[in-house]
């Protein structure tokens, strides 16, 4: 099966130890997590994991179902890049001397829509957000001038659907809760 980069979003309750429960599913199937970001979602109390991994669709669909099987997971989905809007952020530290002596850096900052966050006597920090390729491209261009430190975040992604994709599920669940209370 064809391998590609999938983005998995996992909606969970806010419980201790959930990250481990999510990652062990990947480990068991020998799939490397490329990036992972955890944050709150637009729904109060619901946390959201955004995970990218390179694998085939059969494997990712099984991973998603096995993640969903964990008790404290509300719902999990997987997407290909065309189904989501996504972004990463990177920080590049270069020496201020390079920045001052070399007008190439300024050109690059403009070209990539990057911005300079801090300038000190010794170093300057450039921030760039975009897709992996854009971040990598700026990295390659800055490299000859010398990069002192570099870090790139995990992917954050939202779907092209209007609400959080878990909303419909939560409505269903609420109906179930009312049902279970009526039974008492």
């Amino acid at each position, binding site marked *: 099966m064809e391998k590609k980069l999938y983005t998995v979003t996992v909606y*969970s309750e806010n419980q201790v130890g959930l990250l481990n429960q999510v990652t062990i599913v990947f480990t068991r199937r020998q799939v490397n997590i490329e990036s992972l970001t955890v944050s709150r979602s637009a729904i109060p109390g619901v946390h959201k994991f955004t995970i990218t991994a390179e694998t085939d669709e059969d494997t990712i669909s099984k991973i998603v*179902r096995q993640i969903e099987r964990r008790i*404290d997971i509300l719902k999990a989905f997987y997407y290909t890049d065309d189904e989501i809007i996504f972004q990463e952020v990177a920080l590049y530290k270069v020496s201020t001397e390079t920045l001052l002596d070399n007008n190439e850096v300024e050109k690059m900052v403009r070209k990539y829509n990057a911005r300079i966050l801090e300038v000190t006597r010794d170093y300057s920090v450039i921030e760039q957000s975009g897709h992996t390729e854009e971040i990598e491209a700026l990295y390659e261009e800055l490299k000859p001038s010398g990069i002192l430190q570099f870090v790139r975040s995990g992917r954050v992604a939202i779907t092209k659907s209007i609400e959080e994709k878990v909303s419909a599920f939560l409505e269903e669940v609420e109906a*179930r809760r009312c049902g279970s*209370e009526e039974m008492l």
Partner: protein
Amino acid sequence: MISGAEALMRCFKEEKVDTIFGYPGGFIIPAFDALYSYQDVFKFILTRHEQGAIHAAQGYARVSGKPGLVMVTSGPAATNIVTGAADAMMDSTPLVIITGQSTVAQLGTDSFQETDVIGITQPVTKWSYQVRRAEDLPWAVARAFYIAREGRPGPVVLDISKDAQVQMLDFHYEPCRFIRSYQPYPQPDTSAMREAAALINAAERPLAVVGQGVQLGHAIQELYAFLEKADIPAASTLMGLSIMDENYPLNMGMVGMHGNVAPNRQTNACDVLIAIGMRFSDRVTGNIQSYAPQAKIIHLDIDPSEINKNVKVDVAIVADVKTSLPALTALVNKAKHQDWIASFAPYRQQEYDEVISKDLHPQHTALSMAEVLKCLSDTSGEKATLVADVGQNQMISARYFSASPQRQFIASGGLGTMGFGFPAAIGAALGNPEAETYAVCGDGGIQMTIQELGTILQYQMPVKLIILNNSYLGMVRQWQELFWQERYSSTPMVNPDFVKIAQAYGIAAASVEKRENLQAAIQEMVAHQGPYLLEVKVEQHGLVYPMIPAGSPISHIILGKDKA
């Protein structure tokens, strides 16, 4: 205000617990102290090892349908229950496992008997949670029982810090009836149901494969109604053996590696395969590419993550079979499949001629394992539980013990845990005291948990232990003989005198080796009041047939050595 430990006991009472299996230790002393005042409420079974406690709880849960409750201390006790938890996870057995834990202040400091129980047990449990404050106990226990029991059952661990046991709380118990993130009973999709019915109505050669889900869902009558309306022959998995009576006309036997020839062969001849509450284990499917490639496959299961996990299916009905089977029955037409059903008979005859009759009437003087199990099956009562260990003893038990809802066959199916059988039988005897309880073990497996003879002694439990002694780790020896050029690496065993061991525990015992004495020996064991150990010295080189070699297509059935 009451202590957390006292609250724990009250929670158990609220959950109608009657039996607890376990072993005390440092960080669970407060809970055991509270238990001291509840001796009239709960029967506590002190096993001789924590592994014994959890397997006993599994046996209890498997026959009673209620969650088995285990209470042990932290550290080594918690790691000793891991095998049982993994086993229960694979075989969908409801368990609530209480482990003690160090004080909250000591967590993460490598303090005495502190271990990362949550980290260790998360991969092998349905839910694993650490309770750090007494006030969280009622909530956590209620949730634990709910999760263990509802939907597809499974083991749950509650790791309770010493602080939570000794702190005081205002006790109020609210049983758990709902968890937002867990839907135990998904509703079947009606369009999938219609598609399934259409496939079944058009089928000429339908075959049902029945797994433990039917038993867990209490859907045996619903299964019969379905099979009978559409006249569908059915086979069962190892875990589903206690569902259909051996003599039920539509029961075609067991599928799988050592299953019956007819249902294995016909799996690859049917046109529609209806999998009911089973998970397409590799022991059932053999080589997955050549598993029923000709058939449309319908899968009924409560767990959505089982769908398309091993075998790609055409229609999936995700629901409790208790709900989905009657709904499906309403949609299927009455049908007759006489010719198809009759086509199983020649294979059944072939298996009888080439395997069963040889097993039951061997040409050599040594007893075969099959003779022993057939005799036990014929001699034991209408209500009986047979708990097998793992290996040849298990497969022979599955093949020759006539199981039914009143005569349950229990074994470690998914994990294949040697040492499971004997302690699980102790739990089974407590979970279903009306049934005679037999543990069938090999000489290898029994020695993995033989210390539980002490438990039998202490509580005088009427468990009958049959040791099939061939002085080998027989199943591995079988593989070595058939596939590893008879290189018997580490499979011969030098064994103790099992009868003397039983005698040391004050347990009645006998050993039998000769055919003419077998029946009398088994009759004596069955008739004996109280625990009993019967060692049967069987042929050393016995083999279990039929056999589908691991990874082979299920059509590749070996019926005997000359045919290999």
